[in-house]
């Protein structure tokens, strides 16, 4: 067997020397985690009405630029420490086990939030839109009524609960069923995006106002919905920057292939391009879909729809239409278009639920193996070979976040995007880890295939510095954005509960680590030994 050009490596018949995972699989692994449908829906639902003067397409481009350095950090780590368990290990080994655990704890805390939230999206954005678009196309008032129920918090909670239970049962039986269908489901979703782009470009923008009025009135709304159109504000750079949060929400998470890697460490093109490539691929679709819908609907009507997101009764509706309904509105009475757009969009709404469910379960298993969680958490069902206890814990946490998103406690509810500021802190820690990795684990770096240096400085450290600076800017956006920023929650909620929650996640992570260390020490197990490097000499 030969590796590389010019000079070969001679390998022998030995266990584990498999063919490398290909570019396509690396790419799919990353793209599957990025939600094009919800991304576009949110850009169109929120930017025109809440970010006066923002350029939608520039916002997407900015999100891509801001996501790339972090994707490179994870790509470099995956070449240097492959198959290692991701940033939990990168940070633990490069900085400190406590920081690694807190970063991982932070990940899981917000991942479980984004188990409950997409469970809610399934009814709130998926089924509601599907049944209304079908109801309008078939002139069936019953379907429209049913659609309206799917935005009722109790119905969202009920449907979301069923969905979480469904995936918990699927995963308790093994993950293969899910992964078997995931490619197909992703293909259906992507097909829907392509169809939407085509239909939006081909639809008549001249007739759209009329068609939109017809659609809204057929759905039980006012007869002149297009009159709610608002003239776009002049271009505003700051609002454009803030509006990038909606696209960042999607493209920041193209790093999952860092968990893939072979035994022979290589600077695989598939890995180094797979993560940034995944971002670019998703961005192209988002870009085209947003551009085509803007072309079809026009910014004034989009502004009217978006601006009334929280007051849909202005249109006489229970909820404002997402892009799939807007595109379908351009084809009045066309059941096939309605079905294609509504049905395929449903597959985007819940996509984060299973992905975050599996990732959270795996994190719990890793912590348990390291002694940071009770051993029962990593116990595996003998018959099905699945971690039942971990699955139940994640399902409960996910359901609780669904409850906090839909019903809440008192006047406190979890807003969709308020958690992202906290989540990015884990990325930031990983970027800092990349700066010090070539120095603190010099032998690992020097023997890695990404040991490139520029003027004697490790390229990985340079990328780490760039990613750190960029992520600090990203955090500024997620702090200061008046719509989705953490700082805005003080005004919206009337107090600092969301900020305290964000800080509490980090503090509880640190306390958990210290507590687990004390408890395990009493049993004669010293957690610090789990991570301490044995001196070789």
């Amino acid at each position, binding site marked *: 067997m030969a590796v590389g050009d010019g*000079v070969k490596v001679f390998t022998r018949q030995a266990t*584990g020397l498999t063919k490398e995972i290909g570019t396509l699989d690396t790419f799919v692994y990353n793209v599957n985690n990025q939600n094009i449908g919800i991304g576009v829906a949110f850009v169109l639902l929120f930017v025109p009405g809440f970010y006066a003067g923002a350029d939608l397409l520039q916002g997407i481009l900015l999100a891509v630029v801001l996501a790339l350095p972090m994707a490179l950090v994870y790509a470099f780590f995956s070449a240097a420490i492959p198959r290692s368990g991701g940033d939990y290990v990168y940070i633990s080994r490069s900085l400190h086990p406590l920081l690694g655990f807190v970063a991982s704890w932070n990940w899981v805390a917000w991942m479980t939030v984004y188990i409950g939230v997409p469970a809610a999206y399934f009814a709130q954005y998926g089924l509601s839109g599907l049944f209304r678009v079908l109801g309008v196309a078939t002139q069936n008032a019953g379907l429209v009524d049913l659609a309206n129920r799917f935005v009722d918090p109790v119905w969202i909670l009920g449907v979301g609960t069923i969905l979480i239970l469904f995936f918990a049962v699927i995963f308790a039986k093994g993950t293969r069923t899910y992964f078997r269908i995931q490619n197909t489901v992703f293909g259906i979703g992507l097909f829907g995006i392509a169809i939407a782009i085509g239909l939006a470009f081909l639809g008549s923008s001249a007739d759209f106002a009329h068609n939109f009025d017809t659609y809204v009135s057929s759905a039980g709304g006012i007869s002149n919905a297009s009159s709610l159109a608002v003239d776009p504000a002049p271009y505003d750079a700051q609002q454009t920057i803030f509006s990038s949060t909606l696209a960042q929400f999607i493209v920041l998470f193209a790093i999952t292939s860092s968990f893939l890697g072979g035994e*022979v460490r290589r600077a695989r093109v598939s890995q180094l391009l797979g993560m940034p490539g995944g971002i670019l691929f998703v961005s192209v679709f988002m870009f085209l879909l947003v551009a085509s819908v803007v072309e079809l609907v026009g910014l004034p009507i989009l502004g009217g729809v978006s601006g009334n997101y929280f007051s849909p009764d202005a249109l006489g509706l229970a909820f404002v239409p997402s892009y799939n309904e807007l595109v379908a509105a351009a084809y009045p009475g066309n059941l096939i278009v309605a079905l294609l757009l509504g049905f395929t969009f449903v597959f985007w709404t819940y996509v984060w639920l299973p992905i975050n469910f599996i990732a959270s379960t795996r994190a719990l298993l890793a912590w348990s193996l390291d002694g940071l969680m009770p051993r029962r958490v990593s116990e595996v069902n003998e018959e099905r070979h699945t971690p039942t206890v971990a699955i139940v814990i994640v399902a409960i946490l996910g359901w609780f976040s669904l409850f906090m998103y839909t019903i809440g406690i008192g006047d406190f509810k979890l807003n969709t995007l308020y958690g992202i500021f906290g989540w990015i802190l884990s990325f930031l820690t990983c970027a800092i880890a990349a700066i010090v990795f070539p120095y603190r684990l010099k032998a690992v770096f020097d023997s890695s295939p990404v040991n490139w240096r520029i003027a004697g400085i490790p390229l990985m450290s340079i990328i780490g510095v760039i990613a750190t600076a960029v992520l600090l800017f990203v955090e500024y956006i997620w702090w200061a954005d008046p719509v989705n920023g953490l700082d805005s929650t003080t005004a919206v909620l009337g107090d600092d509960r969301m900020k305290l929650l964000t800080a509490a996640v980090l503090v509880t992570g640190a306390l958990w680590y210290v507590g687990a260390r004390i408890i395990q020490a009493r049993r004669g197990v010293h957690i610090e030994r789990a991570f301490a490097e044995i001196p070789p000499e």
Partner: protein
Amino acid sequence: MARNQSIYVVADIHGSELCWRKFLNAAKFYGVDTIVVAGDVTGKALVPIVERRDGRVEANIGGRVQAARNEAEVAELEARIRFNGFYPYRCDEQTYNDLDADPERRDRVFTDVMAQTLRDWLKLADERLRGTGIRAILMPGNDDGWYVDDVLGESAEVMNTDGRVIQLPEFQVLGFGPSNRTPWHTQRECDETEIAARLDALMPQVDPDKPVVVVTHVPPHGSTLDVAPKLREDLSIVMEGGETVMVPVGSTAVRAFLERVQPVLSLHGHIHESRGAVHVGRTLAINPGSAYNTGALFGAIVTVSGDKIVSHQLVSG
């Protein structure tokens, strides 16, 4: 009351000199009495460092051809190759071409390099462990050629437990290195029926009044310590939904043996990505996993008191 005994186990260090050096220091570092390698000590790749006719020196590291301009840089290349668990091999261009063209000669050279490296390792072990009271056990695994037994026999401090039962004062270690069949047709592998027969044949050596620690390189089937990527015939990995499809590949004979004999502890390796600790009946079964190619030594510390497990911990040294 039985005295606590601590055992440290690693597996699949595959030629990583750094991991071997860490292993030899592990007893002192963790304060354990017995250290065990549960199979697969030899590496998988020979990396020629080729001196070209024009004086250039080149080697392929991490899929990239890298050059050295002087002896210090060649030594640096060698260190990097060793770090990854591979064997550096200096040669001129003619020798390299001969090796490339002649698989048999290449195998001979590869075997010689692996044997000599292991000999050097054992010499280091003898130096470091002599007089310490630390018990070191090394069992060859399916990737280790038969010559490894002869080399191991030269060591004064390191015991080979493959196909035998080692009697220690507090417990006994029953070892079996070969695996069930693999897609790579490695040197120590056999059918499940043969594994079952050979394990049973070891039982007469077992003292029924003393706790047994079983060390088999291959983990028990369906234990979750044996989950590996599913492969096609061309050794490519099966992916579904962008995710690697994982399947159990452990030994059914080993599982049946553990279920019947119920030793206090069983130690395994073989499947690097299946690090974990589970119970097979009353037996605590452990696969410490392996990340030898990153210089991290995955291991497990187990404290045993008589026929009871006091504690166990997976560690990354």
